[in-house]
């Protein structure tokens, strides 16, 4: 067996393990947290009083306008100076959640807005209140529209979590760096790492397609593409 193949096989499990223990949980936790935050931000932006709308816009402007890496460094290396010390994983979760929240709030705002106003009126006309109309009528339709753009965010997030290596989270990319430094084989290690990221993203894309098919089944029945 060639040495490079042997190295790939030997390092596969440590890499995959780092991915499963840190990359995947970090992705899932921050995605769910980010969507929840993004939903609240979108509600504030769409239906909140003026000061709240301004606050949400400011937040989105701030987060989108600064690099994620800088935000992570601020939280992990900067905050201890202000007396707030977080462990690396927690710092990464907070940083990524704040970031994903800002981006997804714009997606969620647009998709909620894309549901025709007449659907709200139809809901009100059968006696529903705002919460019932949102939960039963508007949100299910918005969710369907939101799947492709949110899946984009999700898949970007899988890869962006490699930035957590810079704040000492022992995730997939950091594991690769460690092994590459010890074996002096960066080419092989980083190719292998790329393949594992590709594997994770592919599984997620497949899940996206499934979810999308499920949420749009009422359209497929009529043979329409819209």
């Amino acid at each position, binding site marked *: 067996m060639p040495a490079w193949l042997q190295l790939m096989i030997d390092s596969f499990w440590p890499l995959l393990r780092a991915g499963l223990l840190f990359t995947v949980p970090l992705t899932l936790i921050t995605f769910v947290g980010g969507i929840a935050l993004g939903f609240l931000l979108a509600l504030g932006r769409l239906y909140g009083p003026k000061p709240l709308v301004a606050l949400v816009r400011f937040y989105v402007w701030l987060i989108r306008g600064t690099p994620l890496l800088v935000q992570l460094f601020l939280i992990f290396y900067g905050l201890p100076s202000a007396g707030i010390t977080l462990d690396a994983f927690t710092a990464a979760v907070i940083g990524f959640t704040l970031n994903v929240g800002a981006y997804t709030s714009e997606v969620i705002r647009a998709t909620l807005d894309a549901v*025709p106003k*007449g*659907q709200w*009126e*139809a809901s*009100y*006309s*059968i*006696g*529903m*209140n705002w919460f*019932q109309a949102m939960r*039963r*009528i508007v949100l*299910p*339709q918005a969710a*369907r529209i939101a799947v492709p753009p949110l899946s984009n965010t999700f898949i970007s997030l899988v890869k962006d979590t490699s930035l957590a290596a810079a704040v000492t989270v022992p995730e997939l990319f950091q594991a690769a760096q460690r092994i590459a430094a010890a074996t002096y084989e960066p080419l092989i290690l980083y190719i292998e790492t790329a393949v594992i990221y590709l594997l994770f993203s592919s599984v997620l894309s497949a899940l996206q397609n499934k979810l999308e098919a499920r949420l749009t089944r*009422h*359209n497929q*029945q*009529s043979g*329409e593409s819209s």
Partner: protein
Amino acid sequence: MIRLAQIEKRFGQQVVLKGIDLTIDEGSVTALIGPSGSGKSTLLRCVNLLEIPQAGTLQLGAAQINFDRHHTPSRQQIQAIRQQTGMVFQNFQLFPHLSVLANVMEGLVTVLGWDPARAKQRAGELLEKVGMSHKADVYPGTLSGGQQQRVAIARALAPAPKVLLCDEPTSALDPELALEVVAVLKQLATEGTTMLMATHDLRLAANIARHVVFLEAGQIVESGSSQAIFTQPQQPRTQAFISTLTHKAPDNWEI
């Protein structure tokens, strides 16, 4: 009974309804006619508070609201009115993610808290009434416009409202599909359903409505029995408008 008194509605500086007085008896069918922008749709939407008037009084059954531009009615007041009304929209507005049956059940289960089995039975009966029970399990996107509107009528009737409000119910349909919707509404009228409809469709206004109200620029110009309004309109403005519609009038009417 529905009673509107001195209803005034503004959008910004524009006054859309200028002191509308209108009484609708139980079991009667009233058509609101008038040129586009006359305020007939707005008036209809004021009855179920999709638009909140700035002044006037709305009375529906036991519920009554006195409007005041300085404070909006409470949620309870709005719900008390809405739960006594059903509405049919020009563009149907069925819920696309729910089956036909689920569309009709939705209000009963979510709003009134009915047991799903009971709601399903009531929804089935209503779909039967509008001739749509064979499509109960499909999604609205697969139906023709006329079929969608019939389902929308069943959905609006599900909570047994005191009045059915129809906003241009046939305007988005070709004449043939409109006919099946007219037939359903006519049947409801003979069964004593109270209806208030904004329409340009002479078949609806002349054949189903007993009363016709002609609106222009936010005011009632003339009102009366449908035959009187269509055959002997008193006001010049009404005469001019009617003459644009009546080339489709029933043959036995002398115009």
